[in-house]
C-alpha cells in the first residue's frame, strides 16, 4: 500500500511525542555524566556527580528501597487474599462496592490524602516520627494496584473449576488458596508487585506531606536536589532513580508472555486426529472395590429456581451410568450432588455404598472427577497434576512416583511427565485429567461431558478407548453427556433427564426401543414427530394419512393411548421407506436430498408445516421437488398422549 500524507503526518506526530518525552531524559543522563553541563560532552565524562549524590542522598535512596520492599510485602499479604475474596464474591453488590472503595485512593489527589493522614494520625507522636507513617501512606496508595492486578488474573482463569478439582482431590479451603489460588494468580501478583515497587519508589505527593527529616525518601530528596539549583546533582540523582526503576519496567514487559504460559485455555491447534493416532489405554485390572451410588429423595433448588425435582436413583456398583439430557435438564447438578460440590435440599440423602456422605465435604468423599474442561492446574506440570491428590494425602514420595508412573503408562503419556499443561493437545489433556482423577484410587469416577472439549473427529476413537479402560477398571462411573451416541455406546445404564426430572432409566436398548415417554422417543434416536389422532384402529396424520394399528410399536410398558384422542406419533428416520404416493399413505414433497456417502438423507414436507427426515441407502435416487409416499413398516410408529410430550 502506498503510504500517503496521512501516514507520514501520523508518523511525524508520533516521533515528535517520542522526542518530547525522551530528549530531556537523554539530556539528564548526559548532564549527570559530564563534567560541565554547559560545555556538554566535550568537557569529558565524570562520575563525580553520581558519587556526590550517593554520599549526600544515600540515606534517601536506601530508605526508598526498603520502604518499597516493605510496602510490597504488606500489599501482597493483605491484598492477594482480599482480591481472592472479591473474585469469589462474583457479581455481589457488596463486593463491587468494596472493590470500588479500595481504588478510591487513586481518585483523590495524594496531597489531600497526605493532609488527611497527617491531620488524623499526626498526633500519635511515635507513629508520626517513625517510617511506619510513610508505610501507611504508601500502602494506601499502592494497594489498589495489587488488588486490581490479582483480580484481573483470577477473573480470566476458570477459578471455580480449579478449586473444585482441588477439593475433589482432597484439598481443604486453606490448601486450595495456598496451593492453587496463589500460584495461579502468580502473573497477577508479579505484575502488581512490579507496579507497587515503581510506584512506591516514585511516590512524592503523600511522602512529601508525611515526611520528617528522618524519613525522607528518594523523590523527596530529588525535590530537594532540584531546589538546590545544581543541575548536575539533580541530573545525577535522577539518573539513580532511572537506574532503580528501569529494570522493574523491563521486567514488566515480560509479564504478558508469563501470563499466556499460565492460562492453559489455549489448546494447541495442532490437535487434529491426523497427527494424533489413537492409542489403546490399558489398565492392569480393577483399581479398587467398586461401590454403588444411591441418591435418596434428592432435590435441588437455587433460590426460587427448582433445578432438580425430588427423585431417587440407584446406580449399581461397577456399572457405567450415563446421565443424558438436553442442557439445563439437571444432569450436571446430579453429578455435582454425588461429588459433594452441591448439597441436596433438606430431605435428600447421598450414599456411596453403605456410607451416608450427605454431610461429608467434597474433599473427604474420596471420589474421582474429570471436569468438562479438565481443570488441570496450569502452574503444575503433568506429573505434578497427577500427583496432587496423593500429595494432599501425604503419600510417601516413592509411592507417589510409582503410582504416577503407572498411571502415565496407562494413559500412554510417560514421555510427557515434565510437560507444562499449556504445551499439551486437547486429547493429551483429557488423558492427564483422567490419570489425575484415578491416582487417588477413588471409589467412584465422575465424568462431566468427558468428550465435549475434543475435536469432533477425535471424539469417536477416544470414546472407544475410554469405554474399554473403564470396563477393565470396573469402577462405578457416572458420565454426564448431552450426546446420545456417547450415551448409547458407553452406558450400561442410561438415565434420561428433562427439566429436573428423570424421564426414564434403562439399558441403551430399552431406552431406544421402548421409550417411556414421548420426550425420550424424540430425544433418543432423532425420531420424527407428527401430531395426529388415534381412534383405536387407525392413526390419522397430517396430509390425510391413515395408518393402520398394525404399524404401531408394541410397548413392554404398555403405553396407554386413549381410544379416540389427540396423540403424538414418532418414527425413526431409517425405518420409513419412500414409495409411490397412495391414498391413506403418508406423503409429501422432498425438500432436500443430501448424499452422505453410505446413506442419503431426505427432508420431506408433510402437509403445510411438518418436516420429516428419512434415511435411505445411498443407491436410492430421489430428487428435491418429487412427490413421494412414505411407507411405515409394522410396529415402527410409537404413540404417546399429547400431555406426555409437552
Amino acid at each position, binding site marked *: 500500500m502506498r503510504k500517503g500524507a*496521512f*501516514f507520514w503526518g*501520523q508518523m511525524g*506526530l*508520533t516521533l515528535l*511525542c*517520542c522526542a518530547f*518525552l*525522551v*530528549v*530531556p*531524559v537523554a*539530556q*539528564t543522563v548526559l548532564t549527570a555524566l559530564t563534567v560541565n*553541563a554547559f560545555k556538554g560532552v566535550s568537557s569529558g565524562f565524570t562520575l563525580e556527580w553520581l558519587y556526590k549524590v550517593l554520599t549526600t542522598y544515600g540515606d534517601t535512596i536506601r530508605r526508598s528501597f526498603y520502604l518499597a520492599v516493605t510496602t510490597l510485602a504488606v500489599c501482597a499479604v*493483605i491484598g492477594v*487474599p*482480599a482480591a481472592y475474596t*472479591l473474585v469469589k*464474591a462474583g457479581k455481589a453488590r457488596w463486593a463491587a462496592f*468494596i472493590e470500588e*472503595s*479500595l481504588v*478510591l485512593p*487513586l*481518585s*483523590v*489527589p*495524594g*496531597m*489531600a*490524602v497526605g*493532609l*488527611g493522614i497527617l*491531620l*488524623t*494520625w499526626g498526633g500519635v507522636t511515635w507513629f508520626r516520627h517513625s517510617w511506619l507513617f510513610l508505610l501507611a*501512606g504508601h*500502602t*494506601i496508595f499502592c*494497594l489498589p494496584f495489587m*488488588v486490581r492486578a490479582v483480580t484481573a488474573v483470577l477473573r480470566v482463569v476458570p477459578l471455580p473449576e480449579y478449586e473444585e478439582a482441588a477439593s475433589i482431590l482432597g484439598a*481443604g*479451603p486453606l490448601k486450595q*488458596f495456598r496451593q492453587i489460588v496463589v500460584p495461579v494468580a502468580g502473573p497477577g501478583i508479579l505484575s502488581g508487585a512490579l507496579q507497587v515497587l515503581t*510506584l512506591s519508589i*516514585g511516590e*512524592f*505527593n503523600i511522602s*512529601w506531606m508525611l515526611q520528617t527529616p528522618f524519613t525522607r525518601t528518594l*523523590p523527596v530528596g*530529588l*525535590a530537594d536536589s*532540584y531546589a538546590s539549583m545544581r543541575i548536575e546533582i*539533580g*541530573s545525577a540523582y*535522577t539518573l539513580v*532513580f532511572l537506574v532503580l526503576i528501569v529494570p*522493574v*519496567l523491563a521486567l514488566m514487559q515480560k509479564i504478558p508472555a508469563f501470563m499466556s504460559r499460565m492460562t492453559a485455555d489455549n489448546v494447541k491447534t495442532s490437535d487434529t486426529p491426523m497427527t494424533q493416532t489413537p492409542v489403546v489405554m490399558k489398565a492392569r485390572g480393577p483399581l479398587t472395590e467398586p461401590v454403588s451410588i444411591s441418591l435418596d429423595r434428592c432435590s435441588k433448588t437455587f433460590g426460587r429456581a427448582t433445578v432438580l425435582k425430588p427423585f431417587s436413583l440407584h446406580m449399581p456398583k461397577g456399572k457405567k451410568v450415563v446421565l443424558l439430557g438436553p442442557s439445563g435438564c439437571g444432569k450436571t447438578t446430579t453429578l455435582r450432588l454425588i461429588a459433594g460440590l452441591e448439597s441436596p435440599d433438606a430431605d435428600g440423602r447421598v450414599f456411596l455404598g453403605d456410607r451416608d456422605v450427605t454431610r461429608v465435604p467434597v474433599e473427604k468423599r474420596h471420589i474421582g472427577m474429570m471436569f468438562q474442561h479438565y481443570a488441570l492446574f496450569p502452574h503444575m506440570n503433568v506429573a505434578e497434576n497427577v500427583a496432587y491428590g496423593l500429595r494432599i494425602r501425604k503419600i510417601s514420595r516413592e509411592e507417589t512416583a510409582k503410582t504416577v508412573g503407572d498411571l502415565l503408562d496407562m494413559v500412554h503419556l510417560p514421555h510427557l511427565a515434565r510437560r507444562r499443561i499449556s504445551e499439551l493437545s486437547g486429547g493429551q489433556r483429557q488423558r492427564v485429567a483422567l490419570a489425575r482423577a484415578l491416582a487417588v484410587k477413588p471409589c467412584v469416577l465422575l465424568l462431566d461431558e468427558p468428550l465435549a472439549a475434543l475435536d469432533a473427529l477425535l471424539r469417536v476413537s477416544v470414546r472407544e478407548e475410554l469405554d474399554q479402560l473403564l470396563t477393565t477398571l470396573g469402577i462405578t462411573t457416572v458420565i454426564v453427556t448431552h450426546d446420545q451416541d456417547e450415551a448409547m455406546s458407553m452406558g450400561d445404564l442410561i438415565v434420561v433427564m428433562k427439566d429436573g426430572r428423570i424421564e426414564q432409566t434403562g439399558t441403551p436398548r430399552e431406552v431406544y426401543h421402548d421409550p417411556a415417554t414421548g420426550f425420550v422417543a424424540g430425544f433418543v434416536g432423532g425420531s420424527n414427530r407428527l401430531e395426529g389422532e388415534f381412534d383405536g384402529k387407525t392413526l390419522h396424520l397430517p396430509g390425510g394419512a391413515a395408518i393402520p394399528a398394525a404399524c404401531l410399536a408394541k410397548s413392554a410398558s404398555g403405553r396407554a393411548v386413549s381410544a379416540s384422542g389427540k396423540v403424538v406419533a414418532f418414527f425413526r428416520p431409517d425405518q420409513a421407506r419412500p414409495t409411490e404416493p397412495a391414498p391413506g399413505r403418508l406423503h409429501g414433497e422432498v425438500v432436500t436430498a443430501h448424499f452422505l456417502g453410505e446413506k442419503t438423507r431426505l427432508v420431506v414436507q408433510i402437509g403445510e408445516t411438518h418436516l420429516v427426515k428419512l434415511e435411505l441407502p445411498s443407491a436410492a435416487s430421489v430428487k428435491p421437488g418429487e412427490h413421494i409416499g412414505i411407507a411405515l413398516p409394522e410396529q415402527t410408529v410409537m404413540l404417546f398422549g399429547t400431555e406426555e410430550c409437552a
Partner: protein
Amino acid sequence: MRKKVLLTCFLVPSLTVFVAFFLLPVALLVPQSLDTPIGWGLYAQVITNPRYLASLMDTVLLSLVVTAAALIMGGTAALFLERNRFPGRSALIGMLTLPLSFPGVVVGFMVIMLAGRQGLIGQATNAVFGSKLVFAYSVAGLFLGYLYFSIPRVVTTVMAASGKLDTALEEAARTLGASPLRTLIDVVIPAMTPALVSTGAICFATSIGAFGTAFTLATEINVLPIVIYTEFTLSANIATAAMLSVVLGLVTWLTLFLAHLLSGAETTGGGA
C-alpha cells in the same frame, strides 16, 4: 461454612488499612475545614476570594487544555503504533510509556531540562537568535510538564483499546470508499470513545491534583495543590488547606466517577 469464614477473614486486613488510612483521614478533612469561627462560611469565601477562585479556574483551564492536547497527540501516536508494523516500533512504544512511572518532581525536572535556564531550547535559541528562550517557570512550562505525564497515560489506554478493535470494521469502511481519514473519523474514533473519555478523565484529574510537577517548577502560577501546600505549611492555615483539599478531592473524584458512568471503562488516576 468454613470457606465463608476464611473468605471474610481475607478481607479484614485490607479493609482495616483502607478505613484507617484513607476513609477516616479524608472524612476528617471536612470537620477540620469547618474548624473556624465562620464554619461553612469558609466555603463561601472560596467563591468570593479572588485568589482561590483564580487558582481554581487556572487549574481547571490548564488541565482541560492539557487533556485536549494529550488526547490528540497521544491518541494519534497510539493509533499509529497499533496499526502499523515497522522496525523500531517497539522502541518507540517503550519511549512513549517510560515516563508512566516518573513521579511529578521528575517530570518537573524534565521540563527544566527542556525549557529551563540551562535547558535545550534555551541553548538552541541562544545559538540561533542570540537570546535565550526560557519558559519552564511560566504557564507554558507547567503545560509542558502536565503534557509530559499525560501523553504516556493516553498512549497506553488507547493502544490497549484499539488493539481490541475489530480491524474488519475499518476494512469494511475502506471497501465502501472511505479514505483513511474518513475511516478514522467515522469508524475508529466512535468505537474508541469510551477509552478516550476514560483516559481523558484520568489526564484531567491527574493534572488538577498534580503537586510534584508544579512544586519543582516553583511556578509563578498558583495551581490549587500549591495553594493548599502554602496555606498549610507557610500560613499554618489548616482549615483553609483542609477545605481546599476537600474541594480538590471532590472535583477529581467527580470527574473520574462521571467518566466511569459515561464510558463504563476503568478510570482511576495515580498521582503525578
